[in-house]
């Protein structure tokens, strides 16, 4: 039996405390190392992305039969060629920017990613992707375990969460991750000015320095406050970042601009976490436009701006982005012109060091086909998502994936690097 979300959050508590407060002199070390370091930007599409409308099997008649009102017309897709199984595929028309990256050979599309007995619960599925363990959706996340393998003391900005809530992927046993959604408001305020304000900050630092060893939950909150104080000044340097391209006016693009600013500023962050939501498209999702079209536009335009921005600064070769969601969606549309929770999904990896192309083979959507499951309602997975994680860890971040993933998932991994 899996533990409920509410309960298993607790195991992160006593532990997250320890790593947060790195001494500030580490900033210099991080900068010295970080300028030439590699960066991984993890993008989570919250709600369960409808992979079949992201990468469209536009010559599969069953796709059109089963999606009478939400199928993307073949004439609208942005063709990206044919996969190893001979399926002709095209990107959603809102992903023009990503098609550019694909044409440059820097976008890998990994089809039918997932795991056996896929969870259709948002929360359980998200925890599984975050822990990289389908049987135990508790404990530290896969990125947190990566952070725990890095040499100590760990710089406080080694990872940077652009959302205000910490996802399980970043839970660690001995590494804290600051949440910095907005560099402009990531600042310290006082009711007073001058010496009274300075003395107050001195008092704050003394109060949160209390290690409270026999009060772990107090220690956790103190550690969080120390993490904030430790990172304030260096985060402030990103505020003045002037990107080389215009970013779209979306929260997603603003997060990516912040990431680009941190990379260009040599802050030294290795892992960034970015979230964009709205993918739980149970109703009125649209085909080439509408709700899903807007989601694709936000995703594609944001990533395209980011990719150009880092490329213009000669940083593309140091930067990889991986995009995932907690599950794909049902093949057949429902009566609300939307799709319900499904199984296998699509992972995307892009960056200057990525070997682009189509990986894996598309399902055949005709009922009864062995590439389907759940009474042919859903797409069955082909590529274990942990093999993609393994490739990212081994080949991109340069660590041993087997200890982090608690197993060897290298075989069958798509050769994206």
């Amino acid at each position, binding site marked *: 039996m899996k533990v409920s979300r509410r309960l298993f959050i607790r195991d*992160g508590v006593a532990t997250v405390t320890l790593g947060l407060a790195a001494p500030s002199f580490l900033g210099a070390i991080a900068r010295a190392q970080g300028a030439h370091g590699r960066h991984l930007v993890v993008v989570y599409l919250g709600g369960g992305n409808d992979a079949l409308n992201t990468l469209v099997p536009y010559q599969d008649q069953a796709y059109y039969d089963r999606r009478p009102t939400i199928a993307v017309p073949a004439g609208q897709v942005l063709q990206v060629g044919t996969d190893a199984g001979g399926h002709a595929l095209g990107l959603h028309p809102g992903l023009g920017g990503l098609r550019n990256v694909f044409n440059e050979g820097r976008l890998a599309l990994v089809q039918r990613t997932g795991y056996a007995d896929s969870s259709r619960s948002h*929360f359980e599925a998200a925890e599984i992707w975050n822990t990289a363990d389908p049987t135990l959706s508790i404990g530290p996340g896969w990125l947190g375990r990566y952070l725990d393998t890095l040499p100590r003391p760990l710089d406080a900005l080694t990872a940077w969460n652009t959302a205000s*809530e910490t996802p399980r992927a970043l839970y660690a046993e001995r590494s804290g991750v600051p949440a910095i959604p907005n560099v402009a408001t990531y*600042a310290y*305020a006082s009711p007073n000015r001058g*010496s*009274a304000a300075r003395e107050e900050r001195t008092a704050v630092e003394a*109060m949160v320095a*209390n290690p409270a060893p026999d009060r772990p939950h107090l220690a956790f909150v103190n550690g969080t406050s120390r993490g904030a104080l430790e990172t304030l000044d260096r985060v402030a340097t990103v505020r003045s970042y002037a990107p080389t391209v215009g970013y779209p006016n979306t929260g997603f693009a603003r997060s990516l601009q912040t990431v680009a600013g941190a990379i260009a500023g040599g802050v030294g962050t290795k892992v960034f976490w970015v979230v964009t939501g709205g993918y739980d498209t149970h109703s009125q999702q649209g085909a080439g436009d509408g709700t899903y079209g807007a989601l694709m536009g936000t995703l594609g335009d944001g990533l395209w701006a980011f990719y150009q921005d880092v490329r213009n600064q000669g940083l593309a070769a140091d930067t990889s982005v991986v995009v995932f969601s907690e599950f794909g969606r049902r093949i057949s549309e429902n009566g609300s012109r*939307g799709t319900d929770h499904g199984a296998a999904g699509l992972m995307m990896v892009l960056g200057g060091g990525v070997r682009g192309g189509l990986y894996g083979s598309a399902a055949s959507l005709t009922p009864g086909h062995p590439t389907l499951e759940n009474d042919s309602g859903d797409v069955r997975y082909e590529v274990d998502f942990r093999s993609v994680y393994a490739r990212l860890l081994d080949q991109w971040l340069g660590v041993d994936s087997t200890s982090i993933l608690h197993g060897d998932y290298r075989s069958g991994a798509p050769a994206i690097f």
Partner: protein
Amino acid sequence: MPRLSPEIDHLLRRAGFGASAADADQFRATSADALVSHFVDYEGRPDDVDARIGRPDHARISLDDAFSPDTDIDDARQRWLFRMIHTRRPLQEKMAMFWHNHFATAYRKIAAAAGELQAAKMMAYTPGQARPLRGPQGQIELFRQQALDRFSDLLVQVAQDPAMLIWLDGRSNVKSRPQENWGREVMELFTLGVDFYTESDVRAASRAFTGWNLRRSQGFRDDDPQSYYEFFYDAEQHDTDAKTFSFPVAPGGSHTIPARGPSSGLQDGLDVLMALATHPETARRLARKFWGFFVCETRDPDPAFVESTASVYLRNGTAIRPVIRHILTSSWFTDAAVRHTRYSWPAEFVARAIREVGWQNFELGDVLTPLASMGMPLFEPPNVGGWETGPAWYSTATMLARTNFAATLAASQREFLAVSLGADGGTRDALLGAMLDRVTTAPLDRAPREALQAYLQAAGSWTGSPSQLGTRAAGLARLLVGASEYQLV
């Protein structure tokens, strides 16, 4: 003025939003048992808080134009905050917050589907105003009115609530292609929990609720405050075939809802909801949530607590009032060891800070952005699972948002604090003691206490002048409200 006893303070923090100075006076001589009754049996006291909006001795509402809490979501947020701060029925607001998180529904999707005015009305309309609108009460008012009533009734009303019917797409659940959003989440999140239903149950439940749709009032216009959406059972869209579940769902213990004609098909959904509300796993799941909400977040729920609370729930026909009374009078709750073992939710944190520090000329509009930065914009839970509570409330960003709010509040109350502390500002020690009586933290270890004393020492020679007192009292308010010890309630 000495502080209240620890058990009274504990009750005021957990069942309410902390103690204002007036509460401290009122409850000083009250026993814990009497205070539990005061909280739980609130219906003897008038729900008059909305009528006090605008009074000069209350927190202020920020206005751009006419205050429209029934049709404007930011005004609705201000009204709810006002209620948390000034209500005579704190447990009612606390439970409304609990249900808002349990049946988490977000304004943004409703607004995208129905427009901002209708969405605000669906979330927050409160009937009984001087000039009432037509149409059903808003969702938060449903939670408020049913806060302690039968869960089975609440569940039915939630299933027929217009905001919920848009949020989980029930409005377009039709027999030809049932859609599963409501059918799944009602079992996973609102009742049983993820381990106690099957994929086949999801399909069966989704079919049972086909035809539970919405309709618009006659002459509907989405910019007309008198227009509204309402629940509508569309018999033509109901799947009339039998539906089989993995658990007993029909009277008599059968796992199958029999085939029913369209005109009586509404009963399918009612059967499912009654089965879910009275299922022992629902009882246990609610008990575990109440453990975290009222008792303790630093230890797993005591199995004996879960079983006894679930049993009170089931014995009382799913009524919540006896459940809460059971919890607040239980030895689990009164155990001194569980004090300050809960992580305060941002809305609780804000309301309590305002009640304890002061609200003179304080504008509640100034709370909305900080509350969002703390991770809890009212009426905007992140998803149907609600907010991740406990330690998940705390990240570097959300902690900065809390401490920066503490600074804003403290700055706004500088003069009020100087005046109201008065003679208590005669010495540094007296000032610190008075502020610690007022702003109640978990016990302070020696180091943080010395840091507070050092902060006052740094003021140089102590005159107790209004200016010095205002500066240092505001600084102390910022330090205490922003302290980690204040976050644990």
